[in-house]
C-alpha cells in the first residue's frame, strides 16, 4: 500500500522531470528553425515561459482546472493550492476539493508538479509559431493568460471532471488538452501578428526562411522524443507496469512511423529528404499518439504515427499556401496532429487494451459514438480556445502592441529586444532566400 504510493510518486515525479525537460527540446527546435539574429529572443521566450507558467498555474491555474466546481471550471481551492486535500488518500478516503485527481495515490505536490509541466507545455507551443516578430513583453503577457485561465478552463472540461469528460470524450495524455490548445492559441497569435517580412513574395510566392541551426533542431527533437516517454506513460499517474510499458512502446513506435513516413513523403514530393520534415514528422507522430497511447494497440500506433507523419508534411505546405506564417511548424504538428490524434481514439481504440475506458472505436466494431464524442471535444476546445485567445491577442495588441518594428525585425530581435547577440564571435550572413 504505502510502497505503492512511493512507487507511484517516484514514477509521477520522474515522468514530470522528463516533461519539464521538453522545455529544452522546444527551445532548441524552435530556435534552430529560426534565424541566428532572433536566437536570443526565442530561447529567452522559451526559458522564461516555464517560469511564468509556474507562477500562473500556482496562483490560479491549478484551482481552475482541478478545483471542485461545475462542468465548466473549478471553483474551490482556487488560489495557490489553498484548498483542503488529504492526498495521497484515494477514492472514498479522499477528503479535499481537488477530487478530479483523487484517483491517483500520490501527494498533492506530486500532482501539482506533474500538471504544471503539462500546462507549461501548452505555452511553449505558442512560442514557436509567433517567433521572429513578436514583442518579448507581449509574449510574456499572453503566456500568463494562457496558463492562468485559458488552458486550465478547457482542461477542466476534460481532465477536471467537466462536461466533456462526462460526455465520454477521451484524451489520455493531451492531444487536445495540451497540444491543440497550444496550437489554437498560436493560430490566433499568427493571425494577429501577420507573416514575417519577406516570407510571402508577390504573386503568392512562398519564400523559404531557413533555420539557422539544424543541430539544435535535431537535438531538440530527440529531447522531445525522450520527454514524451514521461508525457504519455506518466499520464497514468500511477506505476502500473502493464500500462506504462504498453504506452512507452506505442509512443515510440508512433514517433518512428511519423519520422519515416514524413521523410518518405517529403522525398517523393520535394525530391529530397528534407530534415525539417523528418523532425516535424516524428513530432507529429508523437502528438498524434498522445490521446490514444493507452487505448490503442502497438500496430494501431504505427498506423496513427504514419498518418500523422504524412499529415504534417501536407499541413506545413498547406499552411504556407494559406499564408499562415509559422516558422517552426507548430500549427501543423500540434494543431493538425492533435486533432487527428484525438479523432484517432474514436477510430482505433480497443476495449481490451484499457478495459472499461474508451470501449471500442469505429474500426474495432464500437460504432461511431466514441468518434462523435471525440469530434465534439475537438470542436468545442478549438472554438473556445481560438476565440478567447484571439480576444487576448487583440487586447494585447491595442494595449502594449504585439509586433516589433520593421527595422527591428530586419536587424533581428536579439539586439532590439534584448541588446544581446547569440553568436558574437561568428561572421554571419543574410541568407538570400
Amino acid at each position, binding site marked *: 500500500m504505502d510502497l505503492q504510493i512511493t512507487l507511484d510518486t517516484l514514477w509521477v515525479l520522474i515522468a514530470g522531470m522528463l516533461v519539464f525537460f521538453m522545455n529544452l527540446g522546444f527551445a532548441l527546435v524552435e530556435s534552430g528553425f529560426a534565424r541566428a539574429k532572433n536566437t536570443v529572443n526565442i530561447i529567452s521566450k522559451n526559458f522564461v515561459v516555464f517560469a511564468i507558467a509556474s507562477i500562473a498555474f500556482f496562483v490560479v491555474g491549478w484551482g481552475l482546472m482541478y478545483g471542485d466546481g461545475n462542468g465548466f471550471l473549478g471553483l474551490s481551492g482556487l488560489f495557490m493550492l489553498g484548498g483542503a486535500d488529504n492526498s495521497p488518500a484515494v477514492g472514498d478516503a479522499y477528503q479535499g476539493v481537488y477530487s478530479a485527481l483523487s484517483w491517483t495515490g500520490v501527494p498533492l505536490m506530486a500532482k501539482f508538479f506533474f500538471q504544471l509541466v503539462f500546462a507549461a507545455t501548452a505555452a511553449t507551443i505558442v512560442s514557436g509559431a509567433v517567433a521572429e516578430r513578436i514583442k518579448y513583453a507581449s509574449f510574456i503577457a499572453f503566456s500568463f493568460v494562457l496558463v492562468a485561465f485559458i488552458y486550465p478552463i478547457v482542461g477542466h472540461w476534460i481532465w477536471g471532471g467537466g462536461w466533456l469528460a462526462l460526455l465520454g470524450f477521451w484524451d489520455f495524455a493531451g492531444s487536445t488538452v495540451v497540444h491543440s490548445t497550444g496550437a489554437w492559441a498560436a493560430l490566433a497569435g499568427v493571425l494577429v501578428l501577420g507573416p514575417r517580412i519577406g516570407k510571402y513574395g508577390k504573386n503568392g510566392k512562398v519564400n523559404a526562411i531557413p533555420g539557422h541551426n539544424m543541430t539544435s533542431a535535431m537535438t531538440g527533437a530527440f529531447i522531445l522524443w525522450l520527454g514524451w516517454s514521461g508525457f504519455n506513460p506518466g499520464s497514468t499517474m500511477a506505476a502500473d507496469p502493464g500500462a506504462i510499458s504498453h504506452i512507452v512502446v506505442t509512443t515510440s513506435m508512433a514517433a518512428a512511423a511519423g519520422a519515416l513516413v514524413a521523410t518518405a513523403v517529403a522525398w517523393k514530393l520535394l525530391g529530397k529528404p528534407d530534415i525539417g520534415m523528418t523532425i516535424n514528422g516524428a513530432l507529429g507522430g508523437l502528438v498524434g499518439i498522445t490521446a490514444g497511447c493507452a487505448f490503442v494497440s502497438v500496430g494501431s500506433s504505427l498506423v496513427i504515427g504514419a498518418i500523422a507523419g504524412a499529415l504534417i508534411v501536407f499541413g506545413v505546405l498547406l499552411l504556407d499556401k494559406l499564408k499562415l506564417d509559422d516558422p517552426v511548424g507548430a500549427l501543423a504538428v500540434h494543431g493538425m496532429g492533435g486533432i487527428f490524434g484525438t479523432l484517432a481514439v474514436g477510430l482505433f481504440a480497443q476495449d481490451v487494451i484499457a478495459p472499461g475506458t474508451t470501449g471500442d472505436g469505429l474500426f474495432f466494431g464500437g460504432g461511431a459514438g466514441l468518434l462523435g464524442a471525440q469530434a465534439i471535444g475537438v470542436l468545442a476546445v478549438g472554438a473556445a480556445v481560438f476565440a478567447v485567445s484571439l480576444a487576448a491577442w487583440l487586447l494585447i495588441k491595442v494595449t502594449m502592441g504585439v509586433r516589433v518594428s520593421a527595422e527591428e525585425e*530586419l536587424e533581428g530581435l536579439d*539586439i532590439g529586444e534584448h*541588446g*544581446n*547577440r547569440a553568436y558574437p564571435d561568428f*561572421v*554571419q*550572413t*543574410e541568407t*538570400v532566400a
Partner: protein
Amino acid sequence: MKKIEAIIKPHKLDEVKEALHAVGVAGLTAYEVKGFGRQKGHTEIYRGAEYTVDFVPKLKIEIVVDDDLAPKVEDAIIEAARSGKIGDGKVFTYDCEGAVRIRTGERGPDAL
C-alpha cells in the same frame, strides 16, 4: 576595364543583383563586411556590462566591367541600393588593368 566596388545594406543584395542583370552584368563577387560611418551602430549589453558596437553589417560587391558599361553599372547599383536612409552605402570606381578567365585563359573584356 573598370572595377566597381559597392558597399550596400545586406538585404539589398537581391535587388542590386537583378538591377545589374538588367544592364547586362554577367558576374560579380560579394562578401560580408562591417562598416563604420555616419550610420551609428548600437549599444549592447552582456551580463550587465554595456558596450557600443560602432560597426554595422554591410555587404560589399565587386564588379569588373568594360569601361563603357561602368557608368550604367554605377547608376544601376545606386538606384537599386538606395533607401534614402543613412547607411545606404557607397560606390567606388577603380581602374582595372587586366582580367583573365582561369578556365579558358581568355584575357581582357572577354574574360568577364
